[in-house]
């Protein structure tokens, strides 16, 4: 693992390159090249270690000495690979993204520095073995993400959004401190490799799980704690929002899985809790997404949905561990792990795509877009691949991981019998419902943004080579995992056998008929090509022409008469409008000569508007009320200190 160390050094050196080159363009190029070189070498090193090493024998060491700071087990390496794999195309995009700002004369130095720090600290988080080291890396990761978010700090929404993120991060860190201190008290060690408690520990076991699930769940964005995602993502620079959604929220998943390694087997009710929370996140994440008009906050809510799907997988795994059933654990955790990788890929693709659109059109409101397919056909194809994949539709990668989770449902029903088939059926129906909503949501954004006629004049729509390259790599990964999942399944299986179910290696993940699935998908493509050839020959014979669309004889159709995103989603939003906070405002005059009217629709986040803001408000009112205690005279303060010390001493005295 020495290579990994050097690769991290290489990445850090990009900071120096970013700072010392005086010319902006050169400094950006130099630091991106260094970052990329570091990431690629690191990725190769981590991947070969993950594939080749036999984790059962010994831990992989750095510089031949066993040090306590790092530990390269399968789970850590798996997440390390995801981070590096996704960071490579994101970094390629970052170069092109910053070029726009450099051309405008804006300084990008801060962005370069924080991005490199963020990358390095995130990689360290997943291989850290010492709890304190982990917390330090975690803190650096959160803070650098916050600082990077503040790129356009002049804007009011940027300040509030990033502040939400900062507060959330600190609540998380505070909970994690308690979590690790409690673990340290129990095991007398700071090392992850020594943390292991059995479920007989009683109440503490539950307290630890609660702390971990709240803290890491908040980072991951599970439903009641998702409030920061739709605030932070839209305002962050695209590179950061792609990395935040693709990777940073996955560190929450990493934390939950680590916790499971410390504390297993998990009690069964916990499995159900995680499953239910995951289901609620998935359903309402996508439903909220449907009500959004801002492309980035829409994608942020979709992260909540996908994290929910990962949570469903983890819940199944927990239930399996409570019953000591290896196939259930393999399928549940396997689905969650693969979906983590898949979501990192297609969500980054979609975020990078949204960034490209934003830079060309200068707006994030999808109601003002339209007809972009006539400007960038290949760009639309790439974005479409990501959309199909995230909706879980075959033949791309999203389907593969959802398929594993469905298999987890089936296996749980089969193995545990009793009333489990009913519960698992309801979960399967929930996941299918989520799939249906995701289809509605992604057909909405694709068709409103790209298809039809342009609602607002498109002045220029240019996509640079680097943007194509970055999107292309992501799309290629979606396709490869979809059509040929075996190697990825193999890696996931290895991670599971090393870290989760060390007992007997089970092959329930490998036994799924992946080969037949690949053959079917290839048949689909071959069939499309065959029909295409036939269609071309028919069209040659009988002709093809372009003509205006049917308008019932009305000639004056204009782009504003097209279906809009609000009208497309209205019927679905109306159904759960109380939860979505969905409301419409119509101003229309129904006179004989109608005046100008207007229409708007909004959706307010329930947790944000109804719970958090009132709580904060009442808290600040409380603070205002006890403000009379703050005097200008120092003698009062000395009196307060004396009183407090007396109380403390009395407590200490009475306690012993």
């Amino acid at each position, binding site marked *: 693992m020495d290579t990994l160390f050097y690769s991290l050094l290489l990445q850090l050196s990009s900071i120096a390159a970013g700072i010392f080159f005086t010319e902006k363009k050169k400094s950006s190029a130099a630091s991106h090249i260094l970052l990329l070189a570091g990431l690629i070498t690191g990725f190769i090193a981590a991947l070969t270690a993950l594939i080749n090493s036999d984790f059962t024998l010994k831990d992989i060491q750095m510089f031949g000495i066993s040090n306590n700071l790092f530990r390269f087990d399968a789970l850590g390496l798996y997440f390390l690979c995801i981070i590096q794999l996704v960071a490579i195309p994101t970094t390629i995009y970052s170069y092109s993204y910053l070029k726009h700002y450099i051309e405008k004369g804006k300084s990008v130095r801060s962005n370069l520095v924080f991005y490199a720090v963020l990358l390095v600290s995130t990689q360290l988080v997943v291989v850290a073995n010492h709890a304190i080291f982990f917390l330090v890396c975690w803190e650096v990761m959160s803070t650098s993400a916050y600082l990077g978010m503040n790129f356009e700090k002049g804007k009011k929404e940027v300040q509030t959004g990033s502040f939400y993120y900062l507060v959330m991060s600190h609540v998380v860190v505070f909970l994690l401190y308690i979590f690790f201190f409690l673990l340290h008290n129990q095991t007398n060690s700071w090392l992850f490799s020594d943390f292991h408690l059995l479920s007989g520990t009683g109440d503490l076991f539950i307290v630890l799980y609660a702390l971990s699930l709240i803290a890491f769940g908040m980072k991951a964005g599970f439903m009641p704690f998702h409030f920061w995602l739709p605030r932070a993502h839209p305002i962050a620079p695209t590179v950061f929002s792609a990395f935040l959604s693709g990777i940073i929220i996955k560190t929450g998943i990493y934390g939950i899985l680590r916790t499971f390694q410390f504390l297993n087997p998990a009690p069964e009710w916990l499995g159900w809790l995680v499953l239910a929370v995951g289901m609620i996140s998935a359903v309402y994440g996508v439903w909220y997404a449907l009500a959004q008009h801002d492309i980035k906050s829409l994608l942020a809510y979709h992260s909540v949905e996908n994290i929910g799907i990962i949570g469903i997988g983890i819940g199944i795994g927990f239930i399996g561990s409570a019953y000591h059933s290896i196939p259930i654990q393999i399928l549940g955790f396997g689905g969650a792990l693969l979906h983590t990788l898949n979501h990192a890929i297609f969500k980054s693709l979609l975020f990078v795509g949204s960034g490209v659109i934003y830079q060309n059109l200068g707006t994030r409101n999808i109601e003002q877009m*339209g007809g972009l*397919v*006539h400007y960038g056909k290949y760009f*639309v194809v790439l974005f479409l691949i990501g959309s*199909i994949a995230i*909706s879980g*539709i*075959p033949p791309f990668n999203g*389907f593969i991981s959802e*398929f594993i989770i*469905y*298999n987890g449902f*089936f296996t749980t*029903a089969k193995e545990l019998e009793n*009333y489990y088939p009913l519960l*698992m*059926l309801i979960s*399967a*129906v929930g996941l*299918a*419902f989520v*799939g*249906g*909503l995701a*289809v*509605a949501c992604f*057909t*909405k954004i694709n*068709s409103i943004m*790209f*298809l*039809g006629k342009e609602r607002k004049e498109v002045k220029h729509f240019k996509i640079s080579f680097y943007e194509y390259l970055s999107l292309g790599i992501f799309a290629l990964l979606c396709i490869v995992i979809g059509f040929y999942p075996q190697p990825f399944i193999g890696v996931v299986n290895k991670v599971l056998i090393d870290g989760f179910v060390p007992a007997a290696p089970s092959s329930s993940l490998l036994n*799924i*008929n992946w080969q*037949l699935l690949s053959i*079917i998908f290839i048949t*689909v493509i071959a*069939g*499309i090509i065959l*029909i*295409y050839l036939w*269609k071309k020959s*028919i*069209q040659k014979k*009988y002709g*093809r*022409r*372009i*003509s*205006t*669309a*049917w308008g*019932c004889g009305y000639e004056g*159709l204009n782009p504003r*008469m097209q*279906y809009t995103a609000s009208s*497309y989603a209205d*019927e*679905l939003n109306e*159904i759960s409008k109380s939860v979505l906070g969905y409301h419409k405002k119509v101003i229309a005059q129904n006179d004989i000569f109608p005046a100008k009217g207007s229409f708007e629709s909004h959706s307010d986040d329930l947790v944000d508007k109804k719970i958090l803001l009132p709580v904060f408000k009442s808290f600040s009112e409380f603070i205002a009320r006890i403000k009379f205690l703050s005097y200008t005279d120092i003698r009062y303060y000395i009196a307060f200190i004396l009183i407090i010390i007396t109380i403390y001493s009395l407590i200490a005295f009475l306690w012993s």
Partner: protein
Amino acid sequence: MELTSILQGIISLVLILGLSPLFVGLVNKQKAIFTGRIGASLLQPYYELMKLIKKETINATSSSFISAVTPMINFIAVVIAAAMLPISFAHPLISFEGDIILFAYMLGLARFFQVLAAMDIGSSFEGMGAAREATFAVFAEPIFFFTVGSIAFISGFTSIYDIYHSIRLDNLSFVVFIIVCSISVFILAVTECSRMPVDDPNTHLELTMIHEVMILDNSGIDLFLYQYSSYIKLFIYVILEASFFYPFAVQSYTLGIIIFLVVIFILSAALAAVETITSRFKMKNIPHYLLFATAIGILNLLIYTFTR
């Protein structure tokens, strides 16, 4: 898989693809008889399909490559789904553990592109149809899982072929369960295939259509592919329905085929009857109709679980 079962699968698939227009002809003929007309020949749908191939293809001005690829993707996805269905006791061409999920998601792929292609025209008519299709699909998806899926969870089989052949008639509560399931599947078929109480295939007003309005601006070979795949899709749901009755055949091929044909005839009569005597629902009532089918499914499942 041995050669005979592959052969069986291919024959089943060819049968499904070949007979699906005939089923539509059968429904139309009976509908004509019910309303006191003579009606077109049973083979009319075939003639119409042949006619469509020979027509010029016209694409709308603002349409893109989506309009060009969707008919093909739609068709292939439906054919793949059809290849997973058993006719009598013949092994389907595609059959593996968990193919029920692939079945549902293949139809999802078809729907995804169908909706995109409708929005590709940039006209409000198509947009309206697309929005309705996407909305109703959200409610239709759970019905499939509460019927065919519930048998999968009860029996422990996850391949459509095995699921249907695990149905045993020796348990009375299971028989009742299956019968109620078949009612839900009928409602699902009506919704997914845009038949009467949900959508009127013969309406003449764009604002009231769902499926027809989405393919309003297609012609020639594109329309051929759309129409043919919608025929196949209807036939797929008919087979899903007919398969519930295979257990009566007690593992006999010929009896299975006879049951298949009889059920198809009964279903076509039922569809024709429903389409003759009912009118289309108001659009805002359709979700209620679908939730009704879902509710039946849940209730049925609960009753079965507790009376087992």
